């Protein structure tokens, strides 16, 4: 009997830990947040339903091996914690300081630690471009760079380019030209497109530039070559190219 009570206590503790992991706060904090949002007490039944959902979510996450924090928590006490390091950079104009496992990519720092989920994880190997962000004015794959290597950097994500009430011209052009279907690659496409126009303006040639020493022009073929690191599985390429052409002020 005593054993059963101990196991129930352990199970509750695990549940609280899982709640904190997936909901970003304690059960009490979640309840308080809900009450603040809705102006009413959170019914116990809703919490119960949420807990059941949570358990299902936890199982799914465990199955796909997507719970590194949970693994860290289950580390035996005699093992050293994984190496951590602090880093400070600016994201969308706001300074932020993070204490991170050294393995954290810039992509995971943005999504999992700063909750900027606009930047997407596609392949996580630099092949699809969904994670493209602009660092110090230059587009990069945020999945192939460690967050701790960005001390002092200025990072712009899709959230920093524009918001629904004041879209960046490139965001507005993607909407107007239907430059997406499922939308998953879109934040990367837009960040890449903004940087592509800057690269052309800066005179950086491309594989399709006929005269290597001339200033490159903004043509359809130039844009397509330069956007080749952003894959769109829905195949919205022609509309993406039209959106970019409109922002560039070119119709060719």
């Amino acid at each position, binding site marked *: 009997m005593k054993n059963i009570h101990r196991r129930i206590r352990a199970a509750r503790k695990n549940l609280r830990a899982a709640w904190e992991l997936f909901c970003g706060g304690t059960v009490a904090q979640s309840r308080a947040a809900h009450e603040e949002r809705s102006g009413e007490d959170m019914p116990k039944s809703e919490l119960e339903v949420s807990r059941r959902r949570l358990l299902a979510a936890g199982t799914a996450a465990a199955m796909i091996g997507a719970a590194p924090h949970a693994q860290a928590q289950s580390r035996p006490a005699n093992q050293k914690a*994984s190496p951590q390091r602090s880093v400070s950079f600016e994201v969308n104009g706001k300074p932020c300081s993070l204490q991170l496992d*050294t393995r954290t990519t810039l992509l995971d720092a943005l999504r999992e630690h700063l909750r900027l989920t606009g930047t997407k994880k596609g392949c996580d190997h630099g092949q699809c471009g969904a994670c493209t962000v602009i660092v110090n004015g230059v587009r990069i794959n945020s999945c*192939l760079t*460690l967050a701790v*290597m960005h001390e002092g950097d200025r990072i712009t994500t899709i959230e920093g380019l524009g918001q629904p009430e004041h879209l960046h011209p490139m965001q507005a052009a993607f909407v107007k030209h239907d430059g997406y279907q499922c939308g998953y690659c879109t934040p990367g496409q837009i960040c*890449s497109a903004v940087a592509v126009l800057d690269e052309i303006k*800066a005179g*950086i040639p*491309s594989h399709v530039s006929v005269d290597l020493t001339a200033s490159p022009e903004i043509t359809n073929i130039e844009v397509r070559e330069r956007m*080749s690191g952003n894959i769109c599985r829905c195949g919205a390429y022609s509309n993406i190219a039209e959106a970019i052409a409109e922002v560039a002020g070119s119709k060719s």
Partner: protein
Amino acid sequence: MKEFTYERATSAEQAAVKARQTPGAKFIAGGTNLLDLMKLEIETPQHLIDVNGLGFDKFESTPEGGLRIGALVTNTALAADMRIRRDYAVLSRALLAGASGQLRNKATTAGNLLQRTRCPYFYDTNQPCNKRSPGSGCAAIAGFSRQLGVLGVSDACIATHPSDMAVAMRALDAEVETIDPEGKTRRIPVADLHRLPGDTPHLETTLGPGELITAVTLPPPIGGQHVYRKVRDRASYAFALVSVAAVLQRDGSGRVAIGGIAPKPWRVEAAETELPRGPKAFAARLLADAKPTASNAFKVPLVERTVAAAINEARQP
């Protein structure tokens, strides 16, 4: 990804000493290849030494009239530099034919030279691979070897070096500058930087423990028509099946290095003496020792045709 500790290097000498002293240490610069491999646990460094910030991101003219490219110059910055575009166009063209805009913005000159093969069996940790796991065997030789090497290969490994940039550097007779943990510097011709696999395909370069590349030096410009021709499965953002870096002179002589067919950029100076006789004679000499598999035998005629196309391109007014 396996755990690792991380530090920012404060000087090249300190970085080289630290790399030799620390078990499982590796340098990291752009990280575009290393992190990819670390996520797959093909690379499992215990300590990373970040060499960004050492100031090796500049160009300098050399006293001989050449150009010294800092090891940390990004692929984009190198391709876009007007001296490269004007005097070493084959290098600019090669860089622009490789990877994607995002990757070129991060990848560095030294990192590009030291990138690992993209052999699918090297990447698949369920398969034997002598390069990844010495002595385990090679699944590629009897496997899907369409992308893999036909020259310089061995019974232990048929992986290719995937760089475009290195092929142009080979044609230009570039040299790599390094510093070792004793603080000694040396210059290594790009031709001698990569080893052939032999029985030890896991040993890929002639760099010593802790030795750090600080720059790549280009000799004075040699003029001529510069062409980089890359044949691949799609028009952009794919590795070469065959690539040709050519610097051709009006008298029909020239230099031709080939990518996508060997564990290092492949250039045979003796074959270049055949160039005035045409691409067939050149390719016959270059490929005399080719050992293709059934799946990549197409690369042998493809080299000849790609060289022919490059020569034609160079003759265009």
